[in-house]
């Protein structure tokens, strides 16, 4: 990232003037933290006592045999407190907020995962907390809303635009410009105005650092390939960052193919020609937008990947061909999820299952001497409403109908 927050020609900080000063403070505090070994030490300690770091690297023996190719290793971000890699970023920003002396945090959330993580951090650090969530996501992800409220957060349903993640981000910015003095906006992914992309990627880089040590310990050498799903790009950047130094490791980002690359109902920014460069939500990247620059509707079975933009750092790595991008459709993702549950007893989040789908396509082409790593960004049991729905499970429907009737009565 250069002085103005660009990676190559991507990124920057396209922010209203009212936020200028707070971004200056944020950048300065962030720079101090990056320079201070104590800060990283404090971060590691927090993550190893409050969350479960280092998270394991699991050898997926059955899947490896099934595909008959590379040894498949799974980096288990699902075992983090709150169930996803989102905790890494949020707890890091929490430490920053404490240092800046702010008393309130806000955040956007799509799947609810980042909202849960932020509400959790706010409870732990004694901060006021407001979460913006598209009205449609509030409906889809009611369990997460319930928990956020129980954790003490106020959840505001956003009724504008497509009523999903990008609208929640806009609304969070509106809150921020209003309450900038005492409020920090905990951005949830490696997007948004600088320094967020770099800062979020930094906190998440703990994933790749651990994974590199672990794969050397178990496999004796670097993996051939590393796979991660790409929504905003934070879990991908988190695991990729360390491996960018290793020129023989191929990095593969898997985007949400939705109903297919040709369907118009997807969230493929980098691995299809549908996206073009643009500036929105405070940064420049590849966006799914029309010829006038209006953002399009996106679709994915995974709420956390259902987003119009992508990390500017990834756009840069894409352009420089340092990361290869693929996509997986909703159907492929459900299949990959199914196989992973049955073979390994592991339930990836729908988001993470994209990385699995991408890896499964290619694992057979490698040799058993090779290893690949799949980043399991989160756990799937949070997605019961979506997954059971996708399977059209009859007993699940019956259960919900029965409960609904019971609640209608009183």
């Amino acid at each position, binding site marked *: 990232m250069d002085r103005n927050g660009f990676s190559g020609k991507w990124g920057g900080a396209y922010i209203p003037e009212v936020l200028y000063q707070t971004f200056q403070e944020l950048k300065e505090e962030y720079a101090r933290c990056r320079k201070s070994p104590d800060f990283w030490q404090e971060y590691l300690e927090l993550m190893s006592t409050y969350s479960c770091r280092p998270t394991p690297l699991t050898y997926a023996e059955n899947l490896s045999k099934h595909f008959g190719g590379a040894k498949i290793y799974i980096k288990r971000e699902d075992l983090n407190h709150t169930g996803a890699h989102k905790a890494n970023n949020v707890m890091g920003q929490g430490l920053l907020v404490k240092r800046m002396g702010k008393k309130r945090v806000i955040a956007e959330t799509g799947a609810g995962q980042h909202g849960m993580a932020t509400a959790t951090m706010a409870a732990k650090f004694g901060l006021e907390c407001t979460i913006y969530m598209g009205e449609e996501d509030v409906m889809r992800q009611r369990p997460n809303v319930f928990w956020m409220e129980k954790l003490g957060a106020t959840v505001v349903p956003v009724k504008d635009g497509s009523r999903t993640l990008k609208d929640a981000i806009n609304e969070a910015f*509106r809150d921020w410009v209003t309450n900038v003095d005492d409020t920090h906006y905990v951005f949830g992914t490696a997007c948004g105005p600088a320094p967020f992309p770099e800062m979020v990627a930094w906190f998440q880089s703990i994933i790749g650092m651990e994974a590199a040590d672990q794969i050397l310990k178990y496999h004796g050498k670097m993996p051939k390939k590393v796979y991660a799903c790409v929504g905003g790009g934070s879990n991908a950047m988190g695991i990729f960052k360390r491996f960018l130094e290793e020129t023989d490791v191929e990095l593969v980002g898997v985007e949400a193919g939705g109903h297919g690359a040709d369907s118009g109902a997807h969230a493929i920014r980098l691995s299809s020609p549908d996206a073009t460069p*643009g500036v929105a939500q405070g940064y420049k990247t590849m966006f799914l937008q029309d010829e*006038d620059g209006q953002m399009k509707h996106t679709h994915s079975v995974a709420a956390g990947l259902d987003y119009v933009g992508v990390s500017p750092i990834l756009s840069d790595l894409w352009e420089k061909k340092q990361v290869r991008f693929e996509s997986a459709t909703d159907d492929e993702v459900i299949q990959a999820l199914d196989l992973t549950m049955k073979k390994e007893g592991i339930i990836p989040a729908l988001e993470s299952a994209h990385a699995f789908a991408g890896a499964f396509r290619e694992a057979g082409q490698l040799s058993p001497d090779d290893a690949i790593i799949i980043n399991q960004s989160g756990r799937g049991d949070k997605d019961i409403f979506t997954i059971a729905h996708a399977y059209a499970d009859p007993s699940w429907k019956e259960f919900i109908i029965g409960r609904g009737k019971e609640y209608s009565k009183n």
Partner: protein
Amino acid sequence: MLLEQQLRNALEKKDILLMTHIVLGYPSFDVNREVIKQMVENGVDCIEMQIPFSEPMADGPVILKANQDALAAGTKVEDCITFGAEMVKEYDIPFLFMTYYNIIFKYGEEAFFKRAADSGIKGFIVPDLPPEMGESFLALADKYNLAPILIYAPTSTSERMGELAAHGRGFIYCVARRGVTGKKSEFDKDFDNYLGRCRAATDLPLAVGFGIQDKEDIEALKGKADMAVIGSRTIKLVEQDGAKAVGPFIAGLK
């Protein structure tokens, strides 16, 4: 004539100028036409025409909804530029385009400046483009003699105001308070201090916007600012009472 000069000329006859705001294509270009007519006929000095964007991050609920409805009605950037050119031809006051940076970026910066200059537009207000991000934008503004309107906020330090002044042309848009468009502002001691800092930082005329609702607000600004900006207020008025209500409202502000 350049925007700043135009405004200074107008200021010779008035204590304070009035700038109004419309969202293009909301509820329709026809209504836009009628509203602008009423505004100009009742003495508005400058009009900012917002080209709608799907992600209007700095706008409050009223303007946000207007943006969305305009787009839902099929409003295109090209239509907005054509409409702008028509207004410039029709009326003798300066017109500005207000929009978010992606609209200009996606159109092609130079192409956009060229079209705007050809149409007689006097300047641009782009709330998500601080000068650090706008090097080529500012260079093109110079080249095409269009005024990039820069923004001051209560959170801007005096040092920052100085930097911004160096890049601004036409006038400086002073945001009256923290927050987004549409809510009432308090014109209190803090505000006076802030406006004092603004004045000290630049020789450009000062416009004050965000939350200006009525004659009283405008009176309070006299002697402190050069131009008052009315935004969401007229949009709500048109929604409630129709375009014809705008003329009497504007007339009543003086």
